[in-house]
């Protein structure tokens, strides 16, 4: 069975979806990703959907699920590279992808994750301090 490859980059997991997913593939991606998050202790998940021409409610739900599941496991999810037409359609459809953050491209997504996780570490440091 086909699988979407998940790359590991330091603290982050990187997924690039390059084909239009059929449902089984999307469900597999969801479970694979959650497994990977737990195995590697990744702090961030970056999903690049710039090649996706269609995101329907099912795909939207998968993305939302991944975001929420990762959050429970203490990892941030950011979806990057959404096509304008896809964004307009999702809004019209009534789907707002709650639970995931978005960024324009992989670079900005990475930056966002680093900042977010950096902040968390700083915040943790602060808690250790006298304050």
């Amino acid at each position, binding site marked *: 069975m086909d699988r979407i490859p998940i790359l590991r980059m330091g603290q982050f997991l990187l997924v690039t979806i390059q084909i239009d997913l059929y449902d089984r593939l999307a469900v597999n991606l969801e479970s694979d990703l959650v497994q990977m998050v737990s195995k590697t202790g990744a702090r961030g998940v970056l999903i690049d959907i710039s090649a996706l021409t269609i995101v329907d409610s099912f795909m939207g739900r998968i993305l939302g699920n991944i975001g929420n599941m990762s959050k429970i496991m203490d990892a941030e999810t*950011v*979806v*990057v590279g*959404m*096509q*304008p*037409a896809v*964004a*307009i359609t*999702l*809004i*019209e459809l009534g789907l*707002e*992808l709650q639970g995931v*953050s*978005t*960024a*324009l*491209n992989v670079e*900005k*997504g990475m930056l966002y994750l680093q900042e977010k996780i950096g902040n968390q570490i700083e915040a943790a440091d602060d808690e250790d301090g006298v304050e």
Partner: protein
Amino acid sequence: MKVDVSKLLRKKKKEIFESWLNNQLVDETLREDLISNEEMREQSNALLDTLLNSISNTNIAEPSSPEFESVNEILQGLSISRARQGFSPRETGAFIYSLKDAIIHVLQLEIPNDPVLLYELMLKISRLFDRFGVVTFETFIQGREEVILRQTSEITEISTPVIRVWDGILALPIIGTLDSSRTQVVMEALLQEIVETSSSIAILDISGVPAVDSLVAQHLIKTVAATRLMGAECIISGIRPEIAQTIVHLGIDLSKIMTKSSLASALKYSFSLLQLEVRKTQKEKTNIIHG
């Protein structure tokens, strides 16, 4: 006395034509700036030819006869092109009605002794030309409507400029009413530009929007939501006091949207988001330094 009208008219074509041209030339509505003499001659000749070829003793009393189809076609072509060239309806109408005058004039000269017949013929000709007139005006309006349609789409296109005010900041001043088709154009233009310039902040300035009702607000909210889905922040600026009033009175919830009263304050806020700082240099020149 029985007169073959069609034959008579055909025989007198030259007179009719000259008299018609003369009528058009002396008419004060003649637009020499829009149409040359030769062109007018040519158009008149073509129309008269076709008319005289289609007219017969029987169909002269039946303006809706299919035999006048070719005349109607020429008239439609003429009035559409005149509508596009910017002729007024009166000028276009004068063209066809002066032909009627010419024909009646010739008939008067040709049938001097039979007022009854003349009257009858004039009535028929009048009816025929009324019909032609209606066709002309109908097509004229159609031509104008096409012009309006084209202009509407042009306006929609040119009235949505996306301006890159700073590296990473886009501004989009919206001027005029925001309906759903307009929103779609605005949204597309904005999102496309966000991708191309990879800007992370977009400012929608609505100072040029005359009124904001719940539908317009809905459109704005959608645009903001779509921008966020792409991973950029969207600020709405240019909210005039009366618009703020209507928004609150209508109970529209804009709390999830970043709003600023002026473009300047939206820009200032954007700078702070991007951690940029604006300050004066010592030589009293404004300059912007990356923070």
